[in-house]
């Protein structure tokens, strides 16, 4: 016999109610809070007991707003009023943080357990009789989101800095492109003059005056070209960290005087007055004389270039504590304040209009800065602005830079000093010289220069041919190119130095090469040449080098 249906249903309802109550009270992974319509607590589950530290016997029957007065302070009693009016309210963690001030079980960085809360009305027969509050602990989720947010911010900062780096590299590329355009223009300008005037000369249509003028123009432009190329090579060395100093004891006043003499014609042609003030009894400093001269020359030619006709340039040299200070002030076009910080940057000129008006690659000042820094000094520029002139100040330590271990030691450093000691009209009289170069023009040029000084010149167009000539002619002196098709200059000097002394193995040898880098120079000297002369070479420089090595004119 089966039981009546109502009894089964009511048994089941009782069971279900008991189960739900048990679950709610003992097992629910959330806080469950029940109140009556007066907001007196009628239900407070195990979860709330454990986390709030309040036992249900301590809270049951008490008013919720009296137990937690800060609910009113934080306006949350309104949500309970809404619930009593039949509305469901959701309280998000982001807006409210928490409902009940409970300490967090984990993530102790939070003052209160972070909560997500739903408050619902409890209705019976269409009337609200109380409220049901469900509280979820979302502290861990919140901490995780904050951490994620932090990572996202870091990522977006990284992204921003990447963008900036890309922008900077694009700017650097743009400057390089502009620079290349300037180079090709600057290199072409003197070439145009050289080719044009050389063509006129060759035509033979020029009279003596015009020919002399043509030769002078060709010379001047070739010098300008040489200067451009040597600036470029310096920059290349600087970029690859291969620029090394030859440290000696330098008499700075005489270096400055020499430079002043060198730029005097240029200044005179623009009627620029150069005034120099040099302290007496100036100490010698440790540095690279050629590079120091290059620094001063660059600054002086810049000053002259950017100073209008009739202007003045002031050069001062003084001692400041353990440093020397060179300042060069001009009355020129000045520098705009926004360009000042970039004055020493590579590939930069204030604007391309300036480039067009004044020529040049904009490398001079960057080379100055690098050279000064190699001397462990500092370079500064001041200008009151456009049209107000500029002052460049170089400071160098008297003690000089600490040795970097490797420094250039070459014979060529002494050549200019020896020029003075060279008196004879035919200093190379009777000297038998073998000239090796694969280029006809170079051979002819060197032969012409040396024969003018009284030497007997034999030429060879390859290393192999030179070795044959060496054995048959027994020259007193060897001048050889290094880079040649087939066997090169290194091979040649190797074979020569392998000979016995009586076969000419000890012959003075000079390398004349377009390989002008320091590394090339060192390799040339190690391979057995005594002198390394970079192309292009001045006739006097060549004569002095040969004479000094051959022991003539000393």
């Amino acid at each position, binding site marked *: 016999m089966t039981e009546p249906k109502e009894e089964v249903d009511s048994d089941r309802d009782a069971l279900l109610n008991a189960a739900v109550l048990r679950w709610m009270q003992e097992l629910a992974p959330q806080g469950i809070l029940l109140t009556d319509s007066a907001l007196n607590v009628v239900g407070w589950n195990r979860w709330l007991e454990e986390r709030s530290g309040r036992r249900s016997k301590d809270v049951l029957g008490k008013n919720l707003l009296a137990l937690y007065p800060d609910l009113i302070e934080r306006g949350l009693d309104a949500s309970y009023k809404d619930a009593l009016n039949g509305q*469901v309210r*959701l309280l*998000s963690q*982001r*807006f409210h943080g928490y409902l009940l001030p409970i300490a967090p079980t984990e993530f102790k960085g939070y003052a209160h357990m972070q909560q997500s809360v739903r408050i*619902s009305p409890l209705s019976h027969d269409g009337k609200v009789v109380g409220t049901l509050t469900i509280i979820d602990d979302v502290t861990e989720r919140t901490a995780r989101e904050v951490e*994620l*947010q932090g990572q*996202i911010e870091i990522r977006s900062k990284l992204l921003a800095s990447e963008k900036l780096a890309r922008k900077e590299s694009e700017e650097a590329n743009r400057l390089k492109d502009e620079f290349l355009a300037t180079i090709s223009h600057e290199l072409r300008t003197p070439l145009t003059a050289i080719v044009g005037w050389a063509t006129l000369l060759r035509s033979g249509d020029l009279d003596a005056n015009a020919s002399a003028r043509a030769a002078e123009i060709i010379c001047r432009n070739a010098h300008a070209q040489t200067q451009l190329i040597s600036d470029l090579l310096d920059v290349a060395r600087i970029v690859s960290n291969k620029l090394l100093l030859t440290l000696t004891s330098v008499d700075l006043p005489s270096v400055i005087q020499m430079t002043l003499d060198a730029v005097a014609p240029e200044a005179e042609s623009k009627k620029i007055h150069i005034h120099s003030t040099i302290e007496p009894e100036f100490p010698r400093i440790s540095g690279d004389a050629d590079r120091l001269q290059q620094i001063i020359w660059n600054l002086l030619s810049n000053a002259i270039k950017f100073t209008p006709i009739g202007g003045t340039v002031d050069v001062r040299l003084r001692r400041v504590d353990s440093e020397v200070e060179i300042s060069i002030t001009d009355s020129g076009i000045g520098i705009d304040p926004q360009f000042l910080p970039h004055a020493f940057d590579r590939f930069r000129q204030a604007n391309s209009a300036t480039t067009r008006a004044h020529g040049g690659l904009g490398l001079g000042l960057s080379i100055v800065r690098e050279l000064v820094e190699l001397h462990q000094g500092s370079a500064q520029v001041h200008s009151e602005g456009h049209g107000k002139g500029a002052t460049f100040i170089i400071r160098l330590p008297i003690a000089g830079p600490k040795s970097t271990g490797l420094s250039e030691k070459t014979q060529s450093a002494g050549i200019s000093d020896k020029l003075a000691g060279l008196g004879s009209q035919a200093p190379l009289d009777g000297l038998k010289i073998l000239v090796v170069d694969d280029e006809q023009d170079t051979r002819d040029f060197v032969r012409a220069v040396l024969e003018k000084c009284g030497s007997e010149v034999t030429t060879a167009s390859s290393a192999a041919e030179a070795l044959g000539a060496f054995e048959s002619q027994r020259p007193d002196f060897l001048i050889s190119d290094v880079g040649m098709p087939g066997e090169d200059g290194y091979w040649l000097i190797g074979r020569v130095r392998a000979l016995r002394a009586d076969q000419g193995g000890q012959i003075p040898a000079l390398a004349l090469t377009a390989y002008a880098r320091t590394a090339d120079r060192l390799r040339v000297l190690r391979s057995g040449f005594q002198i390394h002369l970079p192309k292009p070479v001045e006739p006097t420089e060549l004569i002095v080098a040969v004479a000094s090595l051959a022991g003539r004119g000393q």
Partner: protein
Amino acid sequence: MVLTDRQNDALAELINIAFSRTGAALSELTGQRVLLSPPSVSVHRTTDLPIALARYIPGEVASIHQVFAGPVAGDALLLLNYEGAMELTNLLIEEPIPDFLDESAREVLTEVGNILLNACLGMFGNLLQVHVSFSVPRLHLESLDDLVASLLTGEDDRRYALVVSTAFQVRDSAVSGFLVMALSVASLDRLLHEIEEWEGRQH
């Protein structure tokens, strides 16, 4: 189905009162001035909702959904397009959030929807003088078609949808949103009837 001008004006006026309460509640909650622009009201067949709203909600829709039951029953929803949901959250919590809706952001939107739906439904309840019970609000992210399909699977026939368009105005920004109430014919008739009565009492 087309509302008469009188019904339209009365509905808009009533809803505007609920909106101003919503704005005040959100302003208090967020500490910044939040306004809801005056509503514009229309009625559509629920099946036509995708056509009516597709222009404004082309992609995923964020909906805050509360079911209400009682003598008048139906579904009440606040709809925002995904970008709008992101923007609204950003505007209201005034601190950067990730470029997606994390759980906290979803909860914020749910609370905002809850406040708006409570204000509107509460007012209708008072007007009709009936007790309406609400479900807990839930946030869904889905396509408009899927959303409408879910509205049509209900037991009773919610054939009509009252659509109220508005915009949340926070600082200098405005985020468009739609309040949608899907109702049975009987519920809608009763609502419109009561609204006309109310309107008559105002004059």
